[in-house]
């Protein structure tokens, strides 16, 4: 094991995969000598040159479209949108093109492309640089959507994403880039569709993903001091969704909290709680407690923290679910 930051783990995955396969390249705004807006690709241009660390113009639609065409013709592009907030500029290419061509072509075309993007709050970046827009993308059949919380998963999932033959949206959290964790020395591929039990417990199932995993773990620790044993599930991939793990845990605890940073309305947690309600009603001791971001644009400065769930909100949710 070696300890490294989330951004370094991502860089390691890119480095390893580009070394392994010369069809892999990274393209995006300032990914080259600038090293990426959050320094993920820093130093890679020295290793791979500008043919494979392709700094692009500020043209989000063409960045994704270029990746699609390159993927259809045999390369394995990793393309980057500097902020997920810019996804609207490229949404036609993502939702109408990348997601649909395998299907529309009756299985002839494939698009082995990773679309890296970065979201979330934590840097007071304001309403246009702080969103969690994963629900827009999870909604579209044909895409995979991956949201690693830990450095270890960031590396292992990015490697799996690059080796996937399907288009993968890979969403990093800006608040995690500097977080340090242990990452194995040896190669590790983390499979899609396998959630991680970040903390096991027997009283309440707390389902979450991305940075909210850490808030959940803190809330779980506090809850355990009060005698509530919380199981924290880090989904890791939203599509495919590991419903097996969710179901197993809910059958054990009968009590569920879902927590996510995105706007609460029609978010990932809405889907999960609906499904649990449909299929596991008989084991539920209490309605699913759903905690999400406030349904307001995300304010800059001090107001930002009020717009997303805090540890205290999760703790209250846990207590509510546990009937305290």
């Amino acid at each position, binding site marked *: 094991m070696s300890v490294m930051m989330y951004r370094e783990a991502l860089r390691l995955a890119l480095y390893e995969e580009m070394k392994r396969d010369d069809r892999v*390249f990274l393209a995006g705004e300032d990914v080259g000598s600038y090293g990426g807006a959050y320094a993920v690709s820093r130093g890679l241009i020295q290793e791979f040159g500008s*043919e494979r660390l392709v700094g*692009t*113009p500020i*043209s989000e*639609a*063409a960045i*994704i*479209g*270029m*990746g*699609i*065409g*390159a*993927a*259809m*013709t*045999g*390369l394995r*592009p990793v393309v980057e949108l500097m902020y997920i907030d810019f996804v609207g500029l490229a949404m*036609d*290419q993502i939702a*109408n*093109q990348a997601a649909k*061509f*395998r*299907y*529309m*072509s*009756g*299985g*002839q*075309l*494939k698009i*082995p492309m990773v679309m890296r993007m970065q979201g979330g709050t934590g840097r007071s970046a304001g309403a246009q640089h702080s969103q969690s827009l994963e629900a827009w993308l*999870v909604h579209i*059949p*044909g895409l*995979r959507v991956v949201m690693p919380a830990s450095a270890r998963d960031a590396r292992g999932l990015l490697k799996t994403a690059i080796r*996937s*033959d*399907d288009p993968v949206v890979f969403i990093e959290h800006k608040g995690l880039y500097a977080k340090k964790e242990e990452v194995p020395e040896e190669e590790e591929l983390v499979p*899609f*569709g*396998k959630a991680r039990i970040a903390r096991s417990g027997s009283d309440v199932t707390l389902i979450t993903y991305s940075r909210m995993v850490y808030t959940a773990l803190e809330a779980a620790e506090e809850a355990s001091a009060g005698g509530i044993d919380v199981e924290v599930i880090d989904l890791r991939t*939203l*599509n*495919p*969704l*590991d*419903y*097996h793990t969710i179901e197993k845990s809910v059958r054990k605890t009968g009590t569920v909290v879902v927590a996510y940073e995105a706007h609460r309305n029609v978010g990932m947690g809405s*889907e999960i709680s609906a*499904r649990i309600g449909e299929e596991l009603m008989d084991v539920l001791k209490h309605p699913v407690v759903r905690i999400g971001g406030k349904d307001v644009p995300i304010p800059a400065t001090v107001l930002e923290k009020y717009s997303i769930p805090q540890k205290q909100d999760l703790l209250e949710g846990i207590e509510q679910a546990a009937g305290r």
Partner: protein
Amino acid sequence: MGKNDIDSRTKRSLLRTMVRIREFEDSVGEMHLRGLTAGSMLHLSVGEEAIAAGIGLAMQEGDVFTTHHRGHGIFIARGGEMNRMMAEIFGKSDGYCRGKGGSMHIADVHYGHLGANAIVGGNIAIAMGGGFTQNYRKTSNVSVAFFGDGALNQGVLYESMNMAALWDLPVMFAVVNNQYGMGTRIDRASASQEFVKRGESFGLRSLQVDGMDVEAVYQGANRLFEHSRSGKGPTFFICDAYRFYGHGRKDPSPYREKNEEKKWWDRDPIPAYKDTLISADLISDADYQEDLDAAKAEVADAVEFAKNSQVPEENDLYTYVYVDPIDASGTIG
């Protein structure tokens, strides 16, 4: 024979390709009116055959392309098999896309067809990406984005032209200018008609030709492809033609002057070219008749093939969403 002269075999191929497209499209239109095609949308390329044939025959093995929603003719010129095209247009299992694409989404990896597209301008960046691969792999192949005049005002075109020029990608941006985007005439949609300037301002080698003159298209395409194949970067090729039918087959085009339509029908690229070749003694009447008969037979076969092909079954709904379906028992994925 000079470098830019066209040999007589190629001339006959140009004519034959146009005839095959016309026969196919007329038949597809007929089938649509009879209710045999799948879906409500059908866009015919009748009137645009010289563009498809001229550019299509100037392309080479290994070249790739994407088209807009009016792409049947282009694919025929690139080798598309009428049987499987017709079956796709009928929505049948033997179609190129197993009935999942329909008229507007025909694709074929074998012939480098990276897909027809129903989003105006949506195919352009994808073709640019094909050019990225050719450049990355240092091939001498090209990639062509075919699109209509309507896409001339989509932002992604200019993002793509800029990127292609920035990196000297071997991409042709080929405009099938049929004067209209649905009911909107080009001068009501584009503030300036000087389109060549748009290409040139991005540093693309740019050319506008009479898209009713198949030799002008073919020679122009050859010149532009030579530019790209020798590593000099992308090109912009605007070919002026006319959409002989409505936007869809059933659109009576009330927004167009009948005498405007007549003026263009009088310039129909097929009879004019046939007469040119016959009077120059390059082909005989019998040669032409032979090609026409063969085209009619090919189309009739395609219709039979499509009629006899299976209708997809309900279970087929779920195939080919992903390469790797991954069973995690989530309904999502």
